[in-house]
């Protein structure tokens, strides 16, 4: 089976969907690049090169470079989605949510409900989250809790290239607005990806490691760290179950609850801040619905309540690390009433 990176999977999946369905378009800042310039056309192919070459195949009518104008083009993607297109809107950094949030939570998220069920909004916003590129407080945030909290939105956070393909196909064909978030440290990660088409449903967690002593729920770039810790602890005889929910909305509550019913211990690992977060949300769900099974307090491992710092020394402290995950696991294992 061929190995592909997340970057290649994004390119190939957008390409195959655009070939299959003429209503799929791609829009955003520099999704081709070079418009109005005297040098190369398709100079960027997306800020991180995901879409390189697509403008040559589909033309500028379907690979649409927009001005740096997120409110307008994210809103336009919503308007296009309610009138017969299936736009993929590339929002380079999810930090830019701030300048287009109205279009997302007041407009697209609510059309179906406000209009009595008579409106589809088949739209994917593809964006990058996470720290680690030393790009400071406004290009490093993990803002998925902000959109997970909004009814009407679906939020996808794939961890590897295989899941990215199956989830992106589902996202593009979905009739509701989908926020598709990749971690910016991960898109060079490769794994085996079948050439044939497969769809991964939303709301189905992946059991990345099976274990019986403690449940670790991790998202996005945190999954690989949790797995590394789980594999290390297994050598000591500590059996860690690692669950990647893959989508924060819908959330596979059942998988998490079933696992905690068995292990009695939960650690939630997420790079977002903890206050009002997905980590806090999952902790609350488990505390309410699996209270009887819990043998230790629930632990969360998240970024601290600070903006993302620039200095590499500080940023490394900011990002939850394997050591933090390991300490949390050891703490819940060691806990005695």
């Amino acid at each position, binding site marked *: 089976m061929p190995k592909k990176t997340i970057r290649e999977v994004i390119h190939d999946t957008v390409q195959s969907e655009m070939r299959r369905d003429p209503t799929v378009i791609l829009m955003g800042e520099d999704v081709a690049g070079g418009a109005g310039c005297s040098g190369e056309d398709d100079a960027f192919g997306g800020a991180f090169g995901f879409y390189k070459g697509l403008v040559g195949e589909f033309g500028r009518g379907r690979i649409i470079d927009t001005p740096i104008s997120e409110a307008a083009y994210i809103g336009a993607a919503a*308007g296009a989605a309610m009138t017969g*297109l299936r736009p993929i809107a590339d929002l380079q950094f999810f930090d830019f949510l701030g300048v287009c949030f109205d279009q997302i939570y007041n407009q697209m998220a609510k059309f179906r409900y406000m*209009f009595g069920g008579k409106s589809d909004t088949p739209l994917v916003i593809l964006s990058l989250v996470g720290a680690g590129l030393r790009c400071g407080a406004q290009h490093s945030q993990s803002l998925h809790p902000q959109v997970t909290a909004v009814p*009407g939105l679906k939020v996808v956070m794939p961890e590897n290239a295989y899941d990215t393909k199956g989830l992106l196909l589902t996202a593009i064909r*979905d009739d509701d607005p989908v926020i598709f978030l990749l971690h910016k440290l991960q898109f060079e990660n490769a794994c085996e990806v079948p050439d044939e088409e497969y769809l991964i449903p939303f709301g189905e967690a992946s059991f990345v490691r099976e274990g019986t002593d403690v449940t670790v729920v991790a998202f996005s770039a945190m999954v690989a760290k949790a797995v590394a810790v789980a594999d290390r602890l297994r050598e000591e005889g500590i059996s860690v179950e690692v669950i990647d929910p893959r989508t924060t909305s819908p959330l596979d509550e059942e998988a998490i609850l079933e696992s905690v019913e068995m292990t009695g211990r939960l650690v939630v690992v997420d790079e977002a801040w903890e206050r009002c977060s997905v980590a806090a949300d999952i902790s609350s769900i488990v505390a309410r619905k699996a209270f009887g099974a819990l043998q230790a307090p629930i632990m969360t491992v998240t970024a601290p309540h600070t903006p993302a710092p620039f200095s590499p020394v500080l940023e490394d402290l900011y990002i939850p690390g394997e050591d933090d995950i390991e300490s949390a696991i050891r703490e819940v294992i060691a806990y005695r009433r």
Partner: protein
Amino acid sequence: MTRRKATSGVKLDREQLLRAYRTMRTIRAFETRMGQEFEKGTVPGFTHLYSAQEAIATAVCMNLTDSDYIGSTHRGHGHSIAKGCDVKGMAAELMGKATGICKGKGGSMHVADLSKGMLGANGIVGGSAPLCVGAGLSAKTRNTGGVAVSFIGDGGSNEGAVFESMNLAVVLKLPVLFMYENNGYGEATGFSYAVGSGDISGRAGAFGMPAEKVDGTDFFAVYEAVQRAVERGRAGDGPSAIEAMTTRFGGHFVGDPQLYRAKGEVEKQRREMDCIPVFVDRVLKDKSVTRKALQDIDAQVESLIEEAVEEALAAPYPGPEELFTDVYKTY
């Protein structure tokens, strides 16, 4: 103090004139009655009436078909009626009834009917501009020949998303009309204070599209300007902007005591700037239609509105299960 006169030379046939009159009268009667119902307590929430601006929605939508789109404002009942939304469904919607055009889940600020190309009133000021840019992009990409009209008030004209939308529409050369209705007030603040340049159409023109100012009380003047803009859009020549100068006979919302308006201002405007008598003066003077034909329409409109309100009052509220439906298609 004399009433304004319709001066545009545009020629419409008898059927079109009667249709225009029927639409304007339906909007006025609907709004007047909904204001009364609101005061009686049968219409919950916030309601923003379109009375005084009927000529604009009517003239715009008479240039459109069901495959064209409009996006609307807080003050959206008139746009909805002019675009062909069912009046009975709208009355029920404003009352939050299950028979409403949006099952009672949208309300006054979210009336929509996508099958008519009506993309929704909007609770966010300036909210329709990006959506209509998208609808224009959709029409262009699917090659339908359709256009999208974004209605924006003078209040909405100052929103950043509106500025961005005008630029994006120009850059992508989209079939979009930015239809500004300058009624002189954004909530309780005057246009002359809030629009720094004092010239909405001039500002729109600076984005690189044809823009003109028209008398919004003159149906014919608006019709003519919109016809030019829509033709330009259909021909692939890109967006346009129109600023229609008008007023509003009510407050920002029903119940607004309008302390910000001078004593006698509304009465004077009703005498001088009411688009319906301006229209009637013109068509009777032209002998294009008879007074009798207009009176027949008046009677039909009154009974339609009466029927719509009676049916809406009698209709059931949504069942409790409706709280949970229509959030997602699948979840």
